[in-house]
């Protein structure tokens, strides 16, 4: 009853208490909103924390925890198709470098690790990775001249000039006695038109290697650029005395002679240059030596040929390394046959290549040619036929096939083979000459004469064709 009375009482006094209640609620509202906001914030935090935990599970390894320097280390390259030894070597090099960074080793130590990994990459034709490593090494080490030099070398390989200059300058500052760096610096300055600075660098090199033909050649070029022809001539004469076999000196001397109107002397110098062959680069041990770290057999074999004339010892070293890395690779023996001294050695090398890969077109073709030269015509025909079947469908393969068939008296087949050769190389005078020979042996004198005329059309100085045509003409006159 009391409660009912109270309720009624309340009901009977609506206006006054409602206002009071509202006022009380308004007073509690900020507190409730605050509480709700707090709950929501805690919830958001919890959700964010939980999500982050989930995301951390799929974070690439080491992403968050590693030192920033590690981001400058290049990722390992794709090694599909590479020798396992190469993969092992770069993995180990990369591991050592990363470990040195993680363990907080001194900048010099990290730089050395980076440089050595760069060496491996450079030797294995991963230039961009080498460049990244050398940049790291150059930035971190203070006293090793190799890293700025090798970085400069890499950049200049791609044709850079201006960015290379400070690196070379730093190299010679750190190692003033490394003559190849002075030569690179001199050439770098010369090609940028900085002739005085180039001259100074050439002279520094000359001071280190008296009579150096490359420095003297550079000084002679510089002298010509500024119109000092007599100075150029004296540089060249000194250089020729020191290095009479360096063709480039004789060639430039010919230009000097011609400038002075000494036509005969110019001709003699040019003739001498042509007899001596091509220009070759100066030795550069810091770079040349790196190829010996290569696991790329194709690259090694290519450099075997490149260094065969420049540095026979290095060429041999590279070949031995290629053979030791890939003793079962037939290409090793195809290259070997080009560098041995006797036909017998060449034959053995090619036979080894074929024994390793019985479907090697080039090995079959070369052995076919060789056997033709050795007079083993039956075998030559068989090998050349197989080489064509395998894909060495060249004019030369058909040509030697035709010549071998001629020697065997199979003249109709020989004519067909030479027709195939001519179809593949209609502008080759030597192929037409062989065709003329085969036609003549087949008794087709008229056709043979036509081919000889074609040879002379293609190469007016073809002595054998001239002689054969003269004989043919005299026969016709009789």
């Amino acid at each position, binding site marked *: 009853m009391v409660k009912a009375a109270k309720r009624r009482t309340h009901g009977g006094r609506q206006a006054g208490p409602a206002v009071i209640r509202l006022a009380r609620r308004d007073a509690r509202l900020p507190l*409730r909103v605050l509480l*709700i906001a707090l709950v*929501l914030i805690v*919830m*958001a935090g919890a*959700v*964010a924390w*939980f*999500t982050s935990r*989930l*995301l951390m599970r*799929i974070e*690439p*390894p080491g992403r968050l925890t590693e030192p920033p320097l590690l981001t400058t280390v290049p990722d390992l390259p794709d090694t599909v198709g590479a020798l396992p030894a190469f993969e092992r070597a770069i993995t180990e090099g990369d591991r050592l470098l990363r470990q040195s960074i993680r363990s907080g080793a001194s900048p010099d130590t990290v730089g050395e690790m980076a440089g050595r990994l760069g060496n491996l990459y450079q030797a294995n034709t991963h*230039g961009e990775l080498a460049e990244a490593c050398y940049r790291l090494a150059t930035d971190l080490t203070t006293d090793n001249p190799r890293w700025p030099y090798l970085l400069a070398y890499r950049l*200049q*390989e*791609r*044709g*850079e*000039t*201006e960015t*290379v200059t400070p690196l070379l300058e730093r190299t010679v500052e750190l190692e003033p006695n490394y003559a190849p760096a002075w030569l*690179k610096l001199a*050439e770098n300055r*010369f*090609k*940028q*038109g900085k002739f005085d600075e180039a001259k100074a660098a050439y002279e520094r090199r000359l001071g280190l290697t008296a009579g150096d033909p490359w420095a003297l050649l550079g000084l002679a070029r510089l002298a010509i*650029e500024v119109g000092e022809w007599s100075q150029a001539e004296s540089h060249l004469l000194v250089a020729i005395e020191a290095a009479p076999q360096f*063709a*480039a000196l004789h*060639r430039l001397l010919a*230009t000097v002679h*011609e400038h002075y109107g000494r036509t005969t002397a110019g001709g003699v110098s*040019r003739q001498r240059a*042509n007899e001596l062959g*091509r*220009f070759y*680069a100066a030795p550069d041990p810091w770079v040349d030596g790196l190829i010996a770290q290569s696991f790329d057999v194709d690259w090694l074999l*290519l450099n075997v*040929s490149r260094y065969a004339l420049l540095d026979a010892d290095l060429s041999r070293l590279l070949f031995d390394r290629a053979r030791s890395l890939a003793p079962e690779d037939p290409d090793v023996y195809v290259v070997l046959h*080009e560098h041995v001294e006797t036909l017998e050695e060449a034959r053995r090398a090619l036979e080894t290549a074929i024994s390793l890969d019985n479907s090697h*077109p*080039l090995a079959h073709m070369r052995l076919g040619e060789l056997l033709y030269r050795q007079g083993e015509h039956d075998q030559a025909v068989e090998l050349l036929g197989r080489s064509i079947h395998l*894909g*060495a*469908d*060249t*004019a030369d393969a058909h040509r030697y096939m035709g010549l071998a068939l001629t020697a065997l008296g199979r003249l109709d087949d020989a004519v067909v083979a030479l027709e*195939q050769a001519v*179809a*593949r*190389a*209609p*502008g080759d005078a030597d192929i037409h000459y062989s065709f003329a020979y085969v036609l003549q042996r087949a008794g087709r004198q008229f056709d043979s004469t036509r081919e000889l005329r074609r040879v002379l*059309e*293609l*190469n007016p*100085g073809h002595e054998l064709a001239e002689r054969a045509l003269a004989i043919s003409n005299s026969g016709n006159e009789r």
Partner: protein
Amino acid sequence: MAYSRPSLLFGLAALAIIIFVPWFLVSREAERQGRSVNELIELIVGLRDDLAVSTPVDRRAERRFFDRRPIGRSLEGSQPWISHVNIVDLDQDGFTDVVVCDATMNQVAWIRQEAGGSFTEIPLGDTILAPAHVTPSDVDLDGDIDLLVAKMGAILPNNDKIGSVVVLENDGQEEFTTRILLDGLARVTDIEPGDFDGDGDIDLVVGQFGYDDGEIRWMENLGGWNFESHGLLDISGTIHTPVGDLDGDGDLDIAAVVSQEWEEIYVFENDGQGMFDRHLIYGATNDDFGSSGISLVDLDLDGDLDVLYSNGDAFDYIPPGPRPWHGVQWLENEGDLSFSYHRIGDFPGAYFANAVDGDLDGDLDVFVVSAFNDWDSPEAASLAWFENDGEMEFTRRILATEPTHLLALASADMDGDGLVDLVTGAMHVSPPYDRMSRVTLWRNTWRDP
């Protein structure tokens, strides 16, 4: 069941937090890792266990927007040596034609386009041994187009004086007479026309590669097919000698790329009277750089001529093959005949480059052919383009891996559709011979992705 308004608001806010906070974090992480959100969610819930960061797929990178077809003579069992292609409407009939140097047939030929886009090949003039370069020019100013032909005499290295300066003179009916202007030269690789002395006739600049002996000369037109030679440079290895006003003074200068052991680019600055000052504007100190070609083009569209430059020559190597430093670069003209080097990108065996707006975005992209890639690899590219992002940053994209051994490249709108097409020529000097071509038309089919 009724909910109070505060409860409803609270519920909605909580739901938003539960959905959007994780979504925001996952999206941000996906972007950071270069993955899609789906990929990341699959990783979180364990549907995928690959933890490697995937490379974002660039749809443009996959586009090969050229249809190719051979034009001109068929292979006919030969191993073609096309040393140069050029595009010109030779008979001025409104259809763009192609002229080619065929060093297998020792012939310059005209691949004439007819209505309907069919092509017929017509040999021009006499036999020319190892023609290396053909340039259309009305040399005798009689209103028809003659052809300047650089005769090497032999494509492969040779020191003999077997080159010639040849003109195929057009009689106006596209019958051509062979005129030899100069003979007994070191192998000639380029002839370009221009009025160098300002007397109103067409003079010539001649690049002679030679082998160990070579030179550059300009030949002053004295009239009546008589020319007088003036030496410009006396070293071997010249490949191209394009002509243009490089210093912006209104007369024609000459640029030249000299390979061999020099690997240099020169500009011969003309005083307008045919007197030239020589400037060495660039030189690589890599004596094995392999310079293979230059052309003059305003690549950055700033109103002056820059030099587009490829290096990928390997004729000297046995066997011919790529080098890690082969690629393309441009020399930016900074005025006063000062040029700065910018690498565009690596491309093994890069032989010649053309600057063309291939994707119609208003900047010039660079298209390149490769003659000496590693053809034993099926992935070795023979045609690529470097897409310009408009800021002169280039991204390489492969267009074709076959046919192989592409040495020559020219570009023009061959079919009038407003897109620049390409024409390539192949030189098969070495095996493999399984993906051969002679002259190929690459029709541009670009549509925005």
